[in-house]
């Protein structure tokens, strides 16, 4: 994510790059962009897993059913408000307040609220819900609407399509959150040992990868664009905004593979991961603050805005880590000590 955002602010390719129809002058630029594609599925799946686990833990500790659910509804609403106010404005260095636009944080917020209503259902019911949404979504994209009529644009792009109002429509991303809650059933419920978690994770990831490749290669239902060859740029990038069926399956598998890899590394050498865990303790703070810093920095120093390339983006990543890691450590301390409602929400 940080790498992708560093590229967004420092990389001159963004003078030409249309995120809805991306073109790449080199594999370096392609890799830079594609690596960032992993973040949104990762966030949604982790949000789904977190809701499932946290709900059941709260209920186990004695919370009433709707009291536990209400906590997540509040959290969802808070995320939507953060998107509309802080996040929207921070992208441009707080030049203007943009209330008529939503994005990934609002999408996570809405998904958390929706997931609250099915969090108690059996895993196979949630699997059916997620797969039904994934399969129906390509059909819903055929609904025609006018971008000039605000309510049509807002309704369609909040839930189904992607555009200027919202690049992250809820339906396809919500299905990933539901799949994340399913995986939490396994990681934190059914599978007791690390070996079991690794084997099951690998199995699910590999099977899903095969299904994704089959869906894409056969150019069957749910594909958006043709491709030149197996694992070419055009094969790997079908459509992100909104995600095609292939993209959802592919990145679900990659996130599961990543978590499995993480479990393996955690078993072998947990120290390697310690440094990266700092932002993980305060993810919303990390997200909101790093964009604000980048937005303000490039507003004050316009000479660095989109002037570099791949190397500049990597340097930007390193620089932002130097700034953000101590900030996250500091805020985590504040959050632990504070009982303030808003601090706890961040």
């Amino acid at each position: 994510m940080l790498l992708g955002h560093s590229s967004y602010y420092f990389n001159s390719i963004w003078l030409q790059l249309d995120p809805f129809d991306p073109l790449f002058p080199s594999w370096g630029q392609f890799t830079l962009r594609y690596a960032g594609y992993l973040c949104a599925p990762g966030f949604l799946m982790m949000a789904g897993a977190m809701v499932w686990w946290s709900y059941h833990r709260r209920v186990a500790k004695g919370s009433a059913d709707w009291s536990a659910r209400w906590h997540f509804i509040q959290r969802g609403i808070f995320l939507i408000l953060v998107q509309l106010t802080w996040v929207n404005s921070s992208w441009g260095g707080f030049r203007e307040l943009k209330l008529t636009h939503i994005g990934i944080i609002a999408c996570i917020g809405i998904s958390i609220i929706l997931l609250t209503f099915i969090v108690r259902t059996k895993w196979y019911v949630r699997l059916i819900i997620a797969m039904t949404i994934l399969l129906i979504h390509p059909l819903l994209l055929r609904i025609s609407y006018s971008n000039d009529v605000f309510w049509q644009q807002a309704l369609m792009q909040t839930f189904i399509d992607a555009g200027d109002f919202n690049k992250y429509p809820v339906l396809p991303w919500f299905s990933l959150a539901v799949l994340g809650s399913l995986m939490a059933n396994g990681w934190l419920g059914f599978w007791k040992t690390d070996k079991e978690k690794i084997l099951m994770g690998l199995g699910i990831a590999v099977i899903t990868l095969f299904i994704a490749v089959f869906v894409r290669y056969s150019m069957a239902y749910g594909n958006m664009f043709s491709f030149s060859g197996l694992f070419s740029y055009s094969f790997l990038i079908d459509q992100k905004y909104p995600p095609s069926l292939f993209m959802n399956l592919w990145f679900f598998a990659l996130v599961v593979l990543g978590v499995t890899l993480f479990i393996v590394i955690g078993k072998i050498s947990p120290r390697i991961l310690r440094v990266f865990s700092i932002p993980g303790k305060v993810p919303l703070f990390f997200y909101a603050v790093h964009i604000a810093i980048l937005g303000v920095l490039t507003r004050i120093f316009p000479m660095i805005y989109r002037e570099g390339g791949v190397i500049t983006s990597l340097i930007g990543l390193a620089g932002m880590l130097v700034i953000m890691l101590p900030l996250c450590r500091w805020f985590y301390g504040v959050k632990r000590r504070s009982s303030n409602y808003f601090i706890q929400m961040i």
Partner: protein
Amino acid sequence: MKNMKRQIPAIINILNITLLILFLVGCAARHQTSVETENKTIVYPPKNSEDLSANIRLCRKINRITGNPVGEGSVFGIKEKENLRALIEFENLENFYDQELMLHLDWISPSGRSFFMKPVSFIPNDTTTSILSSVSLSPASRQPGIYWLKVYYFRELIAEKQFELVPWASLPEEEVKAKIILSSKIDKESGMPVMVDSAFRIRKKGRIHATVNIDNLPTDDDVEFKFRVEWFEVDTSSFFKKRVSFIPDAKSSVIFSSISITPEKREAGNYSVRVFLFDELLAEKKFRLYHD
């Protein structure tokens, strides 16, 4: 799960590294080092020699009959109601008949921003050899500077070409020039003059061929150029003239004219051949005829 939530960035970073390694192995279908073609197109050759390649030709117009570019170059004047056209010519297109191809033509301004992106999706057949894109050269929409046209094939850059837009008035106006070569023969295969001379023997079935090479023809406008090749016996009026009219589609062109120099038709003496453009003398070449 609490630990897992905290480790989200770690998961993502590890995956990023894994992806980077995967892509280092290479999913790009093109070599990263480019080559420059004769017409200054920068081409990224395919790793598979049978894959598609493209060459970019920039011009003001396309000849409606021949389909050839008119006014080809890399420097163009900004002018009202003028357009710049790009002809993208393909190699190995025959390997992709009946397959849907995805192309994007991206026009980049001097600021580095894309000012017009044309997505093209097409299924080639045996009549397809190229695709066309054009942008306005009107002063309202273009500023002087260095521009680029980039061609992407299935989202991957395969060719790019730089060009310059300048104010119309700063384009040099070159004079049309003509050079006359006289010869006894024209090579049938090459069309080149053979036995070039300025003195020719009067003989049975004898002829003189004038090959007129014309340069600096303007190709920007649809103006018909009217040439006249006229043969003179010195101090007398002309005895033969040939008129040639055409709209130039290239900066250079060639006109041919010939006369008979048999004993029945010509006498020994001094002669000349003159080339006129719109009745103004462009070039003259003197020659002599003699008997054995």
